[in-house]
């Protein structure tokens, strides 16, 4: 019940945000939080539900950003509304490649392949000057336009990001409660058993990887058209780390966890910027992270909402779908 009320309040607050947010800077933070929500949700699909940790997620984000940017710049100058799904497609393709290559592996090995993949993509973006303009980056990425209006103002962009975030959430929800979702959870909890009843592990994991990557690609496209500048820094490992923090600290395997994590860890660096001199900000960030993990090792949302139910129970918004099995 409380969950429903909270969710409703959140929805109202989100939709009316431009009205009550104090100044454009805060709206900027909200927009970034929205983009990262999409990214965190996408990572959560892979991490929280399949149990496989992808530490190369920034690669999908970056591929989406570059694809969208390149398609909307001269000489192609396609519309944003074509570039966005194209970005999702490109990233999804990369996700498929990773899935097919890597998902015969599990655990730590999968982690390392994803890191390596992201590393290679990053180096390609820096060195392949003809395509990506290398380290000089792509400045002047156009803002999206709806007919004659350009979505240049923050308010307009906020609604775009909000719409996309809600869409992402709904997609995740649909997936999790579908046959695919149940198959994924079964695979996560006990793979040999699941396979013995006919669930093809690799097939479902690849599917999850594709959707997860495509969603991250959407996040990348939104980012590119908001900041209007794309450079190889989008492949920085720190972006992946940020997403991982958001998912795990927020609560993996829940639907609300990534949302909470994204909001919190987008706001945190900005809050630290206000609160203390630049020398101490990052140190404080690291300490906050350690403390958070220490006192809330299962993540914020699962801890706040209480006990973990058995994995197969149909849960609500905040219920965790993570069982007691540890993943090695």
């Amino acid at each position, binding site marked *: 019940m409380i969950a429903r009320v909270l969710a409703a309040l959140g929805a109202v607050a989100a939709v009316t945000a431009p009205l009550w947010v104090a100044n454009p800077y805060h709206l900027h933070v909200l927009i970034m939080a929205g983009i990262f929500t999409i990214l965190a949700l996408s990572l959560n699909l892979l991490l929280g539900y399949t149990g496989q940790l992808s530490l190369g997620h920034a690669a999908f984000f970056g591929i989406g950003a570059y694809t969208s940017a390149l398609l909307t710049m001269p000489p192609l100058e396609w519309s944003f509304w074509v570039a966005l799904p194209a970005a999702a497609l490109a990233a999804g393709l990369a996700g498929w490649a990773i899935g097919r290559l890597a998902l015969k592996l599990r655990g730590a090995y999968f982690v390392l392949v994803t890191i390596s993949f992201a590393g290679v993509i990053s180096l390609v973006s*820096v060195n392949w000057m003809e395509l990506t303009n290398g380290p000089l980056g792509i400045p002047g990425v156009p803002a999206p336009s709806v007919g004659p209006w350009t979505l240049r103002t923050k308010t307009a962009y906020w609604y775009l990001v909000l719409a996309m975030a809600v869409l992402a959430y709904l997609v995740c929800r649909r997936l999790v409660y579908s046959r695919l979702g149940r198959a994924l959870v079964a695979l996560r909890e006990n793979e040999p058993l699941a396979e013995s009843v006919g669930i093809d592990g690799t097939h479902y994991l690849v599917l999850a990887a594709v959707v997860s990557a495509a969603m991250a690609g959407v996040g990348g496209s939104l980012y590119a058209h908001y900041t209007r500048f794309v450079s190889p820094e989008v492949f920085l490992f720190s972006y992946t780390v940020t997403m991982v923090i958001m998912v795990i600290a927020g609560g993996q395997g829940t639907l609300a966890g990534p949302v909470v994590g994204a909001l919190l860890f987008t706001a945190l660096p900005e809050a630290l910027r206000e609160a203390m001199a630049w020398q101490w900000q990052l140190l404080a960030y690291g300490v906050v992270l350690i403390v958070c993990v220490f006192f809330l090792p299962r993540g914020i949302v699962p801890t706040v909402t209480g006990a973990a139910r058995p994995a197969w129970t149909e849960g609500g918004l905040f219920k965790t779908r993570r069982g007691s099995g540890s993943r090695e």
Partner: protein
Amino acid sequence: MRRSMRFVAPVVVLFLAALACYQISGAQQAPIKVGMIQPLSGPVAASGNYVRMGAEIGRDWVNAKGGVLGRKIDLLIEDNKSDPKEAASAAEKLIVRDNVAVMICCWGSSMTLAAMPKVEEYGVPLVVETSSAASITRRGNPWVFRISPPSEMEAIGLESKLKTLGIKKYDFLAVNTDWGRGAVTAFGDILKKNGASQGVVEFMDQSATDLNAQITKIKTSGSDTLMVTTSVEQITLILKQAQEQRLERRIVTTGGSSSPSQLIKHAGPAANGSYHVLVFLPWFPEAHPDAKLAKAFVDEWQKRGFPFDGLTEGFRGHDAVVTVAEAIKIAGKDERRAIRDALWKVNVMGTNGPIRFEKDGPAGKESGQNKPLIFLVEIKDGQLTLPKMQ
């Protein structure tokens, strides 16, 4: 009624008197806010901090002389964490939350490029103090004014000295960033124009420490000169590793930011015989048009205990603050559009030399570009010398 009137009148008089005194003294006036974004953490934290230190000296000197328009300058410093996304966020915060009248940013070209849409969106003048990418002043952003030289300008500034160096064939070793690649193009064009042929061009990652592979390749090229564009740390490594591999070649570094005295300290004898393109010479302040100012800056820097090696970058912070202060003075108020218009009229002396902006970029939307002086120094027997060709 009459009684209260008798009470009110003196109060009103007192109030008016106080108000008059307040206006006359002007001491309580709010400071003028100037924003500054630099990489204060991350891989290039040292450089960002040097610029910050120079800016702080500039600010303190301006304030010591009474400030601008009778008001002190308040320097609001933000960290862009060597990340373009953070640069954009920091710009947003300074412009919207802190209401700065003008900004100085961002050291790295990609950080500056990421912040530029913000200054155009909100209409805030931006003084670029270090970034070297040509595109910064060519993007048609009329709010951008750069005091540092893009690579082409550096190369042209070096042209006159090239004849004396007598370069017949050169190799290039550059950091794989916009800066390094821009330098390869810019200096390459000038060198080829003066009859030199190009040998091997190699790049290295910003964080690479082992450059032996590249040096091994360069060794067999048959060139007489190796041009190097990268940070002072990597130049140190190149010098040391070149010596270890017995690469007997004249080395010329560009970029203007690396401090040769740091090279002497860390690379020792490996640094001898190398040349360095610089924009500020703390060892030879007399080479600058306002020698007294240059010397005073060097002295103040050392008095504050700042590392001497940072001077070759720190001066940019000072000159940026001086430029901003002058623009505000000309504008007569700390209003953004007025300051931007005033920047075109700035003609002030910085530590490097005179600062004046010329039009650069597409017609109607030009940015401002300064033409700083370029110098060449040589390291001989562990000492820095100013070759006679100047």
